[in-house]
């Protein structure tokens, strides 16, 4: 059975995901140690301890993301969070930074380590390096690989792989992007945020509504239309004669029809993005994906129609798995 790894931004979302059939949930502490460091999101140590007990009672695992790059002079905070995660009884930590992986392997050898997508390990050599150096047991694959490439990678590695199947899509190589800090001073790697709301301004300019990030206009829409959130790499820009989405069209990943192919490619776990999403959204997505993984395990046809309405009204893509732009 493929393991379904589901997002939990809050204790309530975690319970909802587990009740909806998540095999595992992932979450973070309420600070800069994880890449979804948003106001009102994430867990205190006490909340995490209670959440782990609740999830374990229902047979679900809890994975904790400590996937930012510790700040020089302040590594102690990240080290403390590793200890907190281990005391809370979590099933694994998801790490990206070499220094933190090294520290965890040395000081918390029994705490299972997964390699975060933020490490962007996109080939067997990189994955084998992390596996050999830090005894990483699972690698979350970057969203730049085709199914064939994933299959080829799995033939050359011994660790488990986890692939994103649903939710937001990073355009750039994950963990190697400083676009957000160039515009705002805050980045995923250093602060656990990308295009932070604290730096967003919506300005009415004539007939338009301009969505600005750190003073740079990312979108411009007629006032009566809904204005998209100004995520930097999904913005509309001009280059020479061209105006449009220079980096990526604002679509989200939907690879549900590829679940059997990913299973065939040797993928162990399927990951759903969206720790910032509501409890209701998480429950609905998890339920639908659990029905799909159950169907796959039992050799039944995948209930894709049930998933269809989740992306209704939005543009979705199979992303790099299809790689139409190559």
């Amino acid at each position: 059975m493929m393991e379904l790894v589901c997002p939990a931004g809050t204790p309530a979302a975690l319970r909802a995901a587990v009740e909806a059939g998540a095999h595992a949930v992932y979450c973070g502490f309420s600070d800069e140690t994880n890449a979804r460091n948003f106001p009102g999101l994430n867990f205190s140590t006490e909340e995490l301890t209670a959440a782990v007990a609740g999830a374990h009672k229902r047979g679900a695992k809890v994975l904790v993301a400590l996937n930012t790059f510790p700040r020089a002079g302040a590594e102690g905070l990240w080290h403390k969070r590793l200890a907190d995660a281990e005391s809370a009884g979590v099933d694994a930590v998801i790490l990206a930074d070499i220094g933190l992986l090294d520290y965890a392997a040395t000081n918390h050898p029994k705490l299972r380590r997964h390699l975060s997508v933020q490490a962007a390990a996109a080939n067997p050599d990189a994955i084998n390096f992390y596996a050999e150096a830090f005894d990483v047991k699972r690698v979350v694959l970057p969203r730049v690989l085709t199914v064939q490439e994933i299959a080829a990678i799995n033939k050359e590695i011994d660790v488990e792989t986890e692939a994103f199947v649903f939710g937001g899509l990073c355009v750039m190589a994950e963990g190697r992007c400083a676009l957000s800090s160039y515009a705002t001073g805050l980045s995923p790697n250093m602060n656990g945020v990308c295009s932070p709301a604290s730096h967003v301004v919506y300005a009415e300019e004539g007939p338009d509504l301009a969505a600005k990030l750190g003073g740079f206009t990312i979108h411009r829409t007629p006032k009566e239309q809904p204005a998209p959130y100004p995520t930097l790499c999904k913005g509309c820009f001009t280059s020479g004669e061209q105006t449009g989405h220079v980096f990526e069209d604002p679509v989200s990943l939907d690879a549900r029809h590829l679940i059997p192919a990913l299973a065939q490619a040797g993928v162990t776990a399927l990951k759903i993005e969206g720790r910032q999403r509501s409890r209701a959204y998480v429950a609905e997505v998890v339920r639908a994906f659990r029905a799909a993984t159950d169907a796959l395990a039992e050799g039944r046809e995948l209930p894709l129609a049930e998933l269809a309405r989740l992306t209704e009204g939005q543009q979705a893509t199979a992303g790099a798995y299809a790689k139409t732009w190559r």
Partner: protein
Amino acid sequence: MTMDLTVGANLFFWTTDATRGFYERLRAAPVARVVVGEVVCSKRLPFWEHDIPLIVATLKDAGKEVALSTLGLITLNRERGKTKDLFDMGLPVEINDITALKHIPEGTPFWVGPLVNVYNEGTLAYLARKGATRICLPPELPLKSIAALCKAGKDAGVAVEVWGHGRLPLAMSARCYHARLHDRAKDNCQFICGVDLDGREVDTLDGQAFLSVNGVQTLSAATGCAAYYTEALAEAGVSTLRLSPQTGDFNALCQGYADRLAGKISPADLVAKLLPEAPGGRFADGFLDGPSGSDWQHPISA
């Protein structure tokens, strides 16, 4: 101690003649070392890799220390092979992707480039134990982190470099934006990135210069410039400023920084001298001590 200068690998796709000319002239530039190699796109390599041994010999002959760079984003099998082969060339290798760590022969010293995530003392210490002797930090790091890393570098015998001048490398992608802007598939790019010798500018819808694209790489539109921070960086313990190749009189740029490090010219004079040839026509130094990377609080001319 006075800082010295490293010329980083050329991030852009220039013709063979332009590349040869650039390195031939660089013999006379007041820089201690030069990193040579293709960082951005392996498809560019066949156009100039046969010249690399000659470039290396030319620079070494002029007394420069030379290292070879790996690619910045390694995915394909042939790219993995190229990376492995670099370690057989008898020169220091500058790694710009963690993939290379799998291939470094035990006990071989190496350098770490600005595209590798070295954000803290733990990572620096690990890389030092693996054999790193020189690390150019990621450009987004603030002065405070730089100072902490220099201290760790001193303890571990690692020289720390900081991005001194050039458009700031901000992101890498599997996708080629040059090809996309020309409605071409990546496999049929026809090497269109070669027409923009300092990258292709991307403006906001308000016409504000913002970013620039260079194949699969995204850089700042403004040119990163540490002219106003040379004393602070030296104070922090930085060994070396890194200068990134750009068009125009690059040797004069190197001379300008050498003069700045020697205290012969002021930051304002250096900036005034460099502005006419700065890609994007403006500077940024906000990553070092500003509210954001794009920030620049100084008058741009003396």
